């Protein structure tokens, strides 16, 4: 399968904070949505910064559309739409003026399409952005990101702070965007429910490291959590355990193949597992014998 985006061993050290993005590797196939999940400060934004060259990586390789994106490669950036968390655009601009700026930046800027988005999203074109609500600024950022016909959308915590209705509207727009086979979305979020709704693949990042990458279907239907008593936990093969977390009366064990575990350990309770629970087990739990990292 061809990938629209590939990261190999991307590393970045911030000497002042001693935070290190450590050998991050994953890829985003054409026509898919990849979600990056992790707690605050896990390295999601730094990873996106390394992809977009707003953060200069120390090592590793990033390929967009099969090519390395260097500063002069403006043709590659023509094909990317970006939405950051919060205010993407300065408060002194209006949507009208922003459009005039973008007309002078993007060769493929589609003014009628931008107007259509403004109308669909109910955004007043002549009003200064400082008077927009948070939801309106995010909608404007989406409209700008889509109005030059990008192939890859990169969203960094773009749904954070939005109410559920507005988040749902944004997710619908993203789903519509990936109807085209050549379109893909990379979306970082710590709101796992958003990614559960739309993502095809999920990458978990913790302390600057990728701790798990899997398709959402695998996570939803193959991965499972076993609720074990201490005696049951002792009988488990360590190679079956990705991570576990001891609680008062039971131990929650993350496993990669729930079906197989049901057959092997007939007395154990094996539940479906949510992204939230996977994240907590991977981050707060102990690593097992089959932990990916």
């Amino acid at each position, binding site marked *: 399968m061809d990938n629209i985006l590939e990261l190999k061993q991307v590393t970045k050290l911030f000497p002042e904070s001693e935070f290190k993005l450590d050998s991050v590797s994953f890829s985003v196939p054409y026509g898919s949505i990849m979600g990056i999940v992790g707690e605050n400060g896990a390295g999601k934004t730094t990873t996106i910064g390394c992809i977009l060259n707003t953060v200069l990586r120390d090592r590793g390789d990033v390929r967009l559309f099969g090519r390395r994106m260097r*500063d002069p490669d403006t043709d590659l950036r023509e094909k990317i739409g970006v939405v950051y968390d919060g205010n993407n*655009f300065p408060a*002194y601009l209006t949507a009208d*003026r922003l459009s005039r700026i973008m007309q002078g930046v993007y060769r493929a800027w589609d003014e009628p399409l931008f107007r259509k988005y403004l109308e669909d999203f109910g955004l007043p074109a002549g009003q200064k952005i400082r008077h927009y609500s948070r939801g309106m600024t995010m909608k404007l950022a989406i409209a700008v990101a889509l109005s030059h016909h990008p192939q890859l959308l990169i969203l960094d915590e773009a749904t954070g702070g939005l109410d559920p209705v507005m988040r749902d509207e944004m997710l619908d727009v993203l789903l519509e965007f990936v109807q085209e086979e050549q379109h893909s979305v990379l979306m970082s979020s710590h709101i796992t429910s958003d990614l559960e709704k739309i993502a095809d693949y999920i990458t978990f990042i913790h302390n600057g490291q990728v701790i798990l990458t899997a398709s959402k279907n695998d996570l939803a239907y193959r991965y499972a959590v076993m609720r074990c008593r201490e005696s049951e936990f002792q009988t488990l093969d360590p190679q079956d355990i990705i991570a576990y977390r001891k609680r008062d009366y039971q131990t929650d064990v993350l496993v990669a193949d729930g079906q197989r575990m049901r057959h092997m350990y007939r007395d154990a309770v094996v539940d479906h597992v949510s992204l939230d629970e996977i994240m907590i087990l991977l981050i707060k739990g102990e690593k097992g014998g089959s932990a990916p990292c």
Partner: protein
Amino acid sequence: MKGLLRDNFYAAYANAKALMGILLLAGIAVAIYPKEGIWLRYYMLCCLVGLNFVTLQDFHKGGFSRWEQYKLTLPVTRADIVRSCYAGHLFWMFAGGVFASVTAGLAVLLHGFVFDLWTDVLLIYIMGMSISLFMGAIFFPLLYARGEERKEASLMGSALFAVAIVLGLALLWNFLFGPRMTTAQIIGGGVIILFCAIAAYGVSYLLAVEIFHHKEY
């Protein structure tokens, strides 16, 4: 690149509009009452330097937005972003020059030649443009190196240094050629100061591009 120029223009427009309103009224006043050209000289210098000073603080006016970071994701190079700032700065310098010229022209139309010598007019332009160029030449690398948080301090420092450099060069020229300079020596001195300012501006651009290439958001 055109889009970046528009962005710089919109950023500076509100402040520039207010100052231009004041300059327009002041311009009419000094054109009507030039008082042997003294007020007109101050006014012309004010146009050439003041408009530039006011608009310089509007570069990187993203405030609390992620606009500067966002620009790096647009299909422009980092050098384009820096170039657009320098081009915007030159634009406002020439806009100030237009104000100065129109007002001086109006005063001459109303009262005849109000200056002592035509070299006075030339030197006002040279001094104003040189101060503006030195100001930009110092300010932009500082802006990229020290960040937007220290923009005001960088701007004040740049303005003071620019005035000091131009006055220093003028004093040096006076020291070298004494009080009885010929017209050619006066013009020569002005041209050398302007040349230094242009050279500093060019070097500053290269320095700013280099600094910005290592900037992370």
